[in-house]
């Protein structure tokens, strides 16, 4: 069994490029060039340099002593929350802005839900002096005001998505429409391992720096490159793809993907795609997605804006279907409690997305000598208001 992508752009049954003909030249140009460009020495050098000097990589792999003691296992945290802009998202946007430059593009578009990817995109556009347009659902704009302000301060134009449910999936639709309308000069920086091939693979490769570092960092600390478990939260799935990447084909390393159950898997307000989704097509990719019996895409719910996407990336659909990864669904309440616990045991306030990954200990028991790496994908500054409201702080 192979878990990484095939030559024709599929993870098992999932992936591909189900796109209108209007997008074909753009996507095809990217498909033909992305691996070549990523292999160029000058590209690698610039990418690595920026990750080091601008993003602040490598991010530490931190042994969480008190958390480990409480759950009687060895827990390491991969500190993506310490990256510039506060999450793993910037690994991908750095890679894609360099890709866009080499493709001769001058205008950047992106979608964003909570605003983290929008901020990471606006940041690299400022860095490179490129025009930046970020599509964001009208409803998300209202509930993520600080990130909207950040994007504007960074010089990006934030365009409200007014169609459909006016959230992340509609922002993605609007970005795709923009790309159809501007096929020559524009590059679309997708924020997760979703969309038509080659996006899921390209984004996974840019995020793969996470597991690449885990390997040598763990070697220093534990004398081996492989943990027993890697745990990450999954919305579209980019931080999980990065944390899993170098372990995909090594089945001694168990992978745990944590989804948002919202108010409960069967409450009607959930984003647990592996349980509630069926195979179908969303944003140009064949994958698991939440939809009606009739094939209309439905609106997910989670307290964390970064996890309420109605699909998962095709890699994760494949990991789920083959059983390579274990999928666990965590409710809003469980996630919030876990976020508070991490804050008070380790002095780290996580993003609410990330908090979901810390809530698995009631669902999954580990042995005392298990090495468990949790990808701490983002910091909680952006979620402070949500924590305040929830805990009445």
């Amino acid at each position: 069994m192979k878990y990484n992508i095939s030559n024709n752009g599929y993870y098992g049954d999932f992936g591909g490029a189900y796109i209108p003909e209007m997008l074909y030249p753009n996507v095809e140009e990217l498909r033909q060039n992305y691996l070549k460009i990523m292999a160029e020495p000058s590209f690698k050098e610039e990418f690595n340099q920026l990750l080091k000097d601008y993003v602040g990589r490598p991010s530490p792999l931190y042994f969480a002593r008190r958390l480990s003691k409480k759950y009687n296992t060895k827990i390491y945290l991969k500190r993506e929350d310490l990256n510039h802009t506060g999450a793993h998202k910037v690994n991908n946007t750095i890679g894609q802005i360099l890709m866009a430059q080499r493709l001769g593009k001058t205008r950047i578009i992106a979608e964003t839900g909570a605003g983290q990817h929008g901020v990471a995109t606006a940041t690299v556009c400022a860095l490179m002096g490129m025009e930046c347009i970020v599509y964001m659902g009208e409803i998300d704009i209202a509930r993520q005001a600080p990130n909207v302000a950040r994007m504007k301060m960074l010089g990006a134009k934030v365009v409200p998505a007014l169609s459909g449910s006016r959230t992340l999936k509609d922002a993605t639709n609007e970005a795709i429409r923009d790309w159809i309308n501007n096929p020559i000069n524009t590059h679309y920086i997708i924020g997760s391992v979703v969309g038509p091939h080659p996006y899921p693979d390209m984004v996974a490769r840019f995020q793969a720096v996470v597991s690449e570092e885990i390997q040598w960092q763990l070697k220093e600390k534990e004398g081996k490159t492989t943990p027993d478990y890697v745990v990450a939260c999954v919305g579209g799935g980019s931080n999980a793809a990065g944390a899993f990447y170098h372990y995909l084909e090594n089945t001694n390393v168990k992978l745990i993907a944590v989804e948002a159950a919202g108010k409960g898997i069967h409450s009607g307000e959930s984003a647990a795609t592996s349980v509630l989704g069926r195979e179908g097509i969303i944003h140009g990719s064949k994958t698991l997605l939440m939809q009606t019996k009739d094939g209309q895409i439905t609106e997910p719910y989670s307290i964390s804006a970064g996890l309420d996407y109605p699909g998962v990336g095709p890699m994760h659909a494949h990991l789920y279907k083959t059983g390579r990864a274990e999928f666990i669904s965590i409710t809003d309440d469980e996630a919030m409690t876990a976020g508070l616990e991490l804050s008070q045991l380790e002095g780290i306030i996580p993003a609410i997305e990330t908090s979901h990954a810390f809530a698995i200990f009631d669902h999954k028991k580990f042995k005392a000598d298990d090495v468990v790496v949790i990808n701490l994908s983002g910091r909680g500054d952006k979620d402070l208001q949500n924590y305040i409201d929830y805990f009445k702080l």
Partner: protein
Amino acid sequence: MNRINQKLKEDKKLLSIYFSAGYPNLNDTVSIIENLEKNGVDMIEIGLPFSDPLADGPTIQASSTEALKNGMTTEVLFNQLKDIRKTVTIPLIIMGYFNPMLQYGVEAFCEKCQQTGIDGLIIPDLPVDVYNERYKATFEKYGLINVFLITPQTSIERINFIDSISNGFIYMVSSASVTGSSSGFGDEQTNYFKRIKNMKLKNPQIVGFGINSNETFNQATLSAKGAIIGSAFIKHLSKKGVNTIHEFVSGILR
């Protein structure tokens, strides 16, 4: 012979109209089709609404959303159309996104189309290569013509490939845009229409996107076999309702 092929043999420029099934009202579908035929329209694209229509501009997005709110589903549409061939003889095409068809079952969908008297399909997000490898045999088994899009950015090799696996017409998208966003054609479009005409493809071309008037219809059909109007017709339905279809069609064909 498939009604589409028969129609394409007629010595005239063809007017094809797109509308979203279930809009403005759920049960307008049949009367819109009958009215269009009565007023001289040559071919109809029945839009199967989708929650996330990537290739469509605001007008068709809105009519699709409204149609879904009205209760339109694949099953409802087939029920509405079950007796359509008792009254309507012009070619009928279902245009929709791939996911609802995939959920219905591609073979079941094609079989139902044949039983209903549907002549062809336009599925913007079903890529040419996937169709060719996985679905072509099924479409052909049920006598359905699948129509592909080309755009000003489509390469010559790809146009030739699309021509080779098409057996009806080629949907020529007038400019790099989503539906309903262009106003009028310039030199760029005219040159593109001519360039395609000079390729002498085996399939005739019908132009879509950006046609909204007698003038744009005539410009488009100078080189092409026909033209498709969608957003402009839906705007007309929104403003003036189903009973004034004759006004719209005569405005285009005057």
